[in-house]
């Protein structure tokens, strides 16, 4: 897949996860762990195993989960110090210097995307590999996926692959009824 190219305007980063292609190899988890130089017990993403439907229309799928970079992020609105914030390119980020470790954001997140850094006490999570994006590279989990589960791009660019896929009817957003407006789209199939 080509690198995310910014259209002239400001980007609005989004990801699509096609669970029908996921084989559960956990390469994304390893790549993320490596990219973010995380302690051994801390992970920004995970792959759940979920059952969908009822017999006979039943299937079991791998479901990669991580921060959904919501457009209405509960973690940002509950943060008492402004440590959690929403960037103009759609990324939900954390200024760890301002994080006091009250854990309110962890409790507010329906996706269990936030974790405490045991060494320093701040909360951290997936940041869509903002540093890689800055250098026109894909996030680690997207670039490493061997089966092309993850599509990443700019929703503000109408010609991008993600814009076309996100508009299709197969696509869902997880926890949509909680009014979080996630930036990660899923194909469950």
């Amino acid at each position, binding site marked *: 897949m080509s690198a995310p190219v910014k259209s002239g305007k400001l980007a609005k980063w989004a990801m699509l996860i096609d669970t029908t292609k996921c084989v559960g190899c956990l390469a994304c988890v390893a790549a993320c762990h490596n990219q973010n130089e995380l302690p051994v017990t801390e992970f920004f993403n995970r792959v759940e195993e979920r059952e969908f439907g009822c017999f006979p229309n039943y299937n079991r799928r791998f479901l990669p989960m991580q921060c959904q970079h919501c457009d209405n992020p509960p973690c940002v609105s509950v943060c008492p110090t*402004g440590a959690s914030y929403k960037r103009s390119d759609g990324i939900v980020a954390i200024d760890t210097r301002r994080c006091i470790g009250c854990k309110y954001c962890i*409790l507010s997140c*329906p996706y269990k995307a936030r974790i405490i850094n045991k060494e*320093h006490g701040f*909360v951290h999570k997936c940041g869509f590999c903002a540093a890689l994006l800055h250098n026109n590279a894909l996030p680690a989990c997207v670039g490493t996926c061997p089966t092309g589960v993850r599509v990443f791009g700019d929703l503000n660019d109408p010609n991008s692959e993600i814009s076309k896929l996100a508009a299709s009817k197969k696509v869902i957003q997880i926890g949509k009824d909680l009014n979080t407006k996630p930036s990660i789209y899923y194909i469950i199939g």
Partner: protein
Amino acid sequence: MIYWSSLITFYLFSAGVSAGAMLLSIAADLINPVKYKKIVTTGAYIAPFPIMAGMIMLIFDLERPGLFWLLLTTFKYKSIMSIGAWIITFFSAVSIIYFILNLQKDYLKLKTKTTAVNAIKLAGLILCTSVALYTGLLLSTLTARPFWNTPITPVLLFISAVIDGLAAISLVLCLKPDEDKRDINTFIHTGDFVLLYLLLLCTVIFLIGLGKSTQSAASALGIVTSGQLSVLFWFGFVAVGVVIPFVAAAYQLCTKMRVHSPWLNFISALFALIGGYIVRSVIVDAGQLTQAILF
């Protein structure tokens, strides 16, 4: 997983006691400052201290306690926690002034301006209401936590806070059993009866409301009705926190205040306080152990 430990439960409880004691003190002062003088002064003497102990707990529950001051250099109007941090700061200040005001009325006998005193009372009334309200809203505004995310949660915690304040006042008054306290006992038992009746009502609405709501809410309710918190819920929350103090208050009212057993007062106040702690403990833990079901 539990992120907010029993330190938070203790904080919510102590904030409830402080806010409730202050609310009742000011209310008694408005109703009849002479007849209910003991309630006014005892409430004022209690108010500043539990919440201060609670605030220390609150700071030590932070992963980075050394940075707690960041709460007081920022104001985020969308964050209930940020609003709450400011409310408890102002509440502490006003409750100390109110404490000194009552202290000087009893012992120092200085001259004070009535308008200034009234302004403090008004500020106190607004702030103690805000404290008792925000502690519930802190939990009830999280959509990810179906056990907390009901409109009745803050009402339940508010009523419980006033009950705890009343119980704390009643407990302190029991230490001086020799005085004639007919009027005060009427105030306490009527207050207890009305508030516990409302708490009972809120608990029933809470249970039925959660049970008949979404799948997430119904399964969250399961943790207290039949799951790992069921013993604490039925014996602690329902029996010790609501039913026993309610029956005690009703009994003391129905016997028309002829028997004022200080022991019965003492025990029912103690039960109400222990129950108040358990109510918060169950709510704080159950909310954290359950989550919105996303599929």
